[in-house]
């Protein structure tokens, strides 16, 4: 795409792009390049010099059981967060779509969690399930269930999943509702005249027509679960117990800042970079396709 009409001049446009170029070069390209560069070295124990190891950091990482476990943890976590938040959001969107009046009120209320930072969402859920003072923990205790996410890895995973999915419901709800409202009423009514019940209509008409939205949300939610849930994990579990909730992004932080293992952390950054790259390409491929519709 090109504009037919353009202004003349070379210095002015260069001056206009200069601020963004500067910020991007200093805070983006230089650090990203550093990450790639550092991933090829191991600092000596005194931090005075760097020893070139080629792909050694990567080999070490990929053979490291903790790192491989973190891959599995991330996959499980992302899938659960995506399915849970999209499921709840779709359920609410289908209901709101059935209303003629009042769906605006529900929408206003359902937008709330979007504004709540993941880290704050983490604190809210931590409070409910706190082993000592948590209300839900207490009531579970009354029912005879001993909740302890500090010791139990599966419970810890469950808690970070629910807290992460909770914050994401608004976003998915808005996109699902928009998708549902874009489906022509006449199609659905025609099916209703033919005697199709709600569930049949949903399965054969609504769900297929909604699939572009669903696919888009799938990718976006996986990206969210990968990167933006750091706050939830850090506030609730700090990756524990025994790394049960250490997702990849958390491990970059834990190894780089807490463990001071720069080579490994940089190599992990590069691996993450490849994953985001792949997801972004997927997203753009899809969007290109949507433009042709």
């Amino acid at each position, binding site marked *: 795409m090109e*504009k*037919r*009409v353009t*202004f003349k*001049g*070379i210095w002015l*446009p*260069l001056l*206009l*792009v200069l*601020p*963004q170029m500067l910020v991007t070069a200093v805070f*983006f390209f230089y*650090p990203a390049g*550093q*990450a790639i560069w*550092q991933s090829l070295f191991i600092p000596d124990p005194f931090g005075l010099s760097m020893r070139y190891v080629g792909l050694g950091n990567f080999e070490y990482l990929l053979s490291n059981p903790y790192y491989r476990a973190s891959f599995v943890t991330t996959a499980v976590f992302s899938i659960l967060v995506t399915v849970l938040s999209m499921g709840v959001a779709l*359920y*609410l969107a289908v*209901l*709101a779509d*059935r*209303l*003629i009046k009042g769906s605006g009120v*529900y929408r206003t209320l*359902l937008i*709330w*969690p979007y504004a*709540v*930072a*993941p*880290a*704050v969402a983490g*604190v*809210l*859920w931590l*409070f*409910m399930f706190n082993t000592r*003072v948590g*209300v839900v923990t207490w*009531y579970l205790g009354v029912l005879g269930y001993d909740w302890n996410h500090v010791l139990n890895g599966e419970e810890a995973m469950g808690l970070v999943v629910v807290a992460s999915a*909770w914050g994401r419901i608004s976003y998915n709800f808005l996109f699902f509702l*928009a998708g549902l409202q874009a489906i022509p009423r006449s199609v659905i*009514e025609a099916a209703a005249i033919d005697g199709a019940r709600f569930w049949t209509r949903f399965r054969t008409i609504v769900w297929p027509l909604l699939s572009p939205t669903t696919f*888009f949300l799938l990718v*976006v939610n996986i990206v969210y679960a990968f*990167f933006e849930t*750091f*706050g939830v994990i*850090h*506030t609730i579990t700090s990756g524990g117990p025994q790394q049960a909730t250490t997702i990849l992004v958390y491990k*970059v*932080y834990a190894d780089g*800042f807490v463990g001071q293992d720069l080579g490994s952390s*940089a190599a992990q*950054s590069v691996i*993450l970079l490849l994953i*985001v*790259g792949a997801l*972004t390409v997927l997203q753009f491929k899809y969007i290109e396709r949507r433009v042709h519709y």
Partner: protein
Amino acid sequence: MITREGMVEKRGVGHWFTHLGLIIGLLFIFFPIWLAFVASTVSQPEIVRPPMPLLPGDQFFENYRKALVSGVNAPVAWMMLNSLIMALGITIGKIVISLLSAFAIVYFKFPGRRLFFWLIFLTLMLPVEVRIVPTYEVVANFGMLNSYSGLIFPLIASATATFLFRQFFMTVPDELAEAARVDGARPMRFFWDILLPMSRTNIAALFVILFIYGWNQYLWPLLITTDPSMNTIVMGIKQMFPSGDDIADWPVIMATSILAMIPPVIVVISMQKLFIRGLVDSEK
């Protein structure tokens, strides 16, 4: 009788089930927030002897005053100010540099334009979470740890806004630029008098999204603000938990959580239309 509803939406029992389903969903969503609010209005002893009450107590003013004025490590009012400066800095900074560069990319043909375009395209792919260690080193070398510029600049380096404005400028009719050129208007005059006023809605929609993005940042402030007086409210909450076995000051912590969500909630609710527009735009 012909009604707008047609024949799919039925009144009656099904109608009430729909509302019931939505209300159950709302209860699930609001329960954590409600509980946090209740906890921020009761006293510490009421919380540490579970179960805590489910209705608000009478310590509202006491807890919020304590949080805002003294907090745990730093006064929460101060942390909110830091968050506000960071959020506005990121929002305004991003919008300004993106408007300028999108204008250059769309309305000029200059050497290196394509290269520049692809360079900023790349930044779409790499969230700050991925390059934290080297970015931290850059900021430390500039002596920007514990400073507003250190909080703001690394988060401005992303291209979403540039793409958004580029997309929008491409839809502006060519006749406008042509007319401006025929009238002998300089490029910046055209930018200032025509393009900018036309972009008002886009700018506002982006403002809502970026403000929430900036306010809700966690990892970056956590790394570079070691001085409690520079903490932002979202990252400061976690710092209020005691290390070891001491019991957390829950009423103050929950009051802080409520305070941390109020500004973004107000922005989202009061500018709902712009927010939804911005959300859809920034994902295109």
